């Protein structure tokens, strides 16, 4: 068979999800956000949730998530997405409410909102992209920046005595009785991305079933902030990030 014969809709095994808008994302080439956005759009479509999903966008690189996934969105103040999602969920219990947050948003300025929403067991799914850096503002230290990692505000590498330790907030969230599912995944390979999709699917199912808060951390990359090519960033992530942020389920009840 020639490629021309193969390339017809009957044989298509993967296409751009319908719930991704036509807009080109503002993300840098190779950004993990794009992969996770695509996964979320696929799931909302496959799970038939486009009419009752409400996303809560963060402040950070994903601030414009609402331009890319074709469901209702609320753009929250920095770190406040879990509080915004709390009310959205409690006042609209039939909806799927999910937050999409970065490490600065979720684990620094929004730590209190994150922990208390999870501790109350709000029926929401929290998608947490941890790339260990503030991408939007130009590559400053994040709460999750690794020791020794160079950023715009740790130009000689993060030092515990100056900057404290990388915050493994997902481990903390797994300790809370309000969380039902806490997992750490990645999207650097096709296999990893498929597992992330399964994890977010479970998180959405839990929220719809009223089981409490689910947290899916996706250990991602920031090739611009890390000053690497996307492929190098994936390799660096697999080699260094997963040591402090090991992949896998932390809690699955």
């Amino acid at each position: 068979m020639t490629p021309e014969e193969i390339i017809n809709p009957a044989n298509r095994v993967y296409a751009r999800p319908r719930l991704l808008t036509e807009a080109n994302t503002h993300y840098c080439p190779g950004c993990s956000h794009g992969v996770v956005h695509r996964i979320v759009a696929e799931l909302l479509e496959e799970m038939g949730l486009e009419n009752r999903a409400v996303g809560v966008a963060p402040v950070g690189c994903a601030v414009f998530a609402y331009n890319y996934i074709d469901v209702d969105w609320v753009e929250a103040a920095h770190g406040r997405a879990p509080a915004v999602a709390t009310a959205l969920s409690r006042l609209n219990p039939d909806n799927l409410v999910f937050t999409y947050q970065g490490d600065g948003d979720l684990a620094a300025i929004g730590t209190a909102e994150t922990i208390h929403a999870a501790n109350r067991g709000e029926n929401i799914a929290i998608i947490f992209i941890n790339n260990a850096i503030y991408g939007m503002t130009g590559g400053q230290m994040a709460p999750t920046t690794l020791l020794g990692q160079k950023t715009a505000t740790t130009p000689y590498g993060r030092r515990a005595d100056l900057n404290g330790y990388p915050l493994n907030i997902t481990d903390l969230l797994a300790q809370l009785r309000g969380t039902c599912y806490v997992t750490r995944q990645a999207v650097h390979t096709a296999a990893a991305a498929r597992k992330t999709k399964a994890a977010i699917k479970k998180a959405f199912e839990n929220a719809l079933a009223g089981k409490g808060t689910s947290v899916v951390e996706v250990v991602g990359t920031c090739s611009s902030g890390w000053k690497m090519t996307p492929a190098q960033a994936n390799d660096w992530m697999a080699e260094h990030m997963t040591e402090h942020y090991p992949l896998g389920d932390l809690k699955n009840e």
Partner: protein
Amino acid sequence: MPKVIGAVTVDAMRCKGCELCVVACPTHTLALKSNDVNDRGYHYAYAADMATCIGCAACATVCPDACIEVYRVIEK
């Protein structure tokens, strides 16, 4: 033994040339167009060796810009 034949298309205008699909492709089907750029200045990905494609969709699964479509037929 059934044979799997695949094909991919890349939306060259949407591609940002990040190369993650090229790295993910197990059959070295994809490459970046080193002598051409799209409207936004990126060396976009393309199927340099379509005959090798097995339609596994690894490329599309890691693509941050959802610009790859994958096709597959199984020849008995």
